[in-house]
């Protein structure tokens, strides 16, 4: 349980940034 909590918390912290990177790339490509 503990590892799951830490794993989930780390994803909550890091993944929005990762997803954002792809979204921003997609937007830039669209703009180009």
């Amino acid at each position, binding site marked *: 349980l503990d590892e799951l*909590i*830490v794993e*989930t*918390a*780390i994803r909550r912290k890091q993944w929005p940034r990762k997803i954002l990177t792809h979204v921003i790339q997609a937007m830039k490509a669209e703009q180009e």
Partner: protein
Amino acid sequence: SLNLRAYEAQFFGFTPQTCLLRVYIAFQDYLFEVMLVVESVILKKLEGFPGCKISSCQIRKSTEKFLLFMKEHFDKLFSRMEEVLLQLVLNIPENVLLPEDKVHQQFPYTKAQFQALEEEMERLQQQYRAEVAGGQALRAELEEQKAVQAELEKILQWFDGLDSTCREHGTGNFKESFVLL
């Protein structure tokens, strides 16, 4: 505990429970280790008194008695310490938002608002594409107009040429002009 303290884990990178469990086990190990050292020192000292009647079994019983007593107090004190640390140190007050989540405070978008924003962007994109197409059509017509105007101007020049030819030769009536032409 009911409260998984996932938000604290997001900040600390470990759950408060783990941290305190780690401390508890370490402290407990030290307590046991030190007790064993105490016991071995006493037994060593007793070797210096061959005549005395204190057996190692008795010493072991004393050790267990003292350890039991210490362990009880240890657990009581540790759970109080745990309570304080969970409350005052290893906790994130409910009014506090971590920096990486600030965006939720600045843009608390509901699903509907988010969808509306996406639809608006879709519409803008379509409008833009329409404008681009419109612009291309307008440019195409401008090109066409250039050609048509050039043609029409050529015809007008032709008429001008016609007139000036007649003027140059000063012909009066039509028949002569026609022959000239």
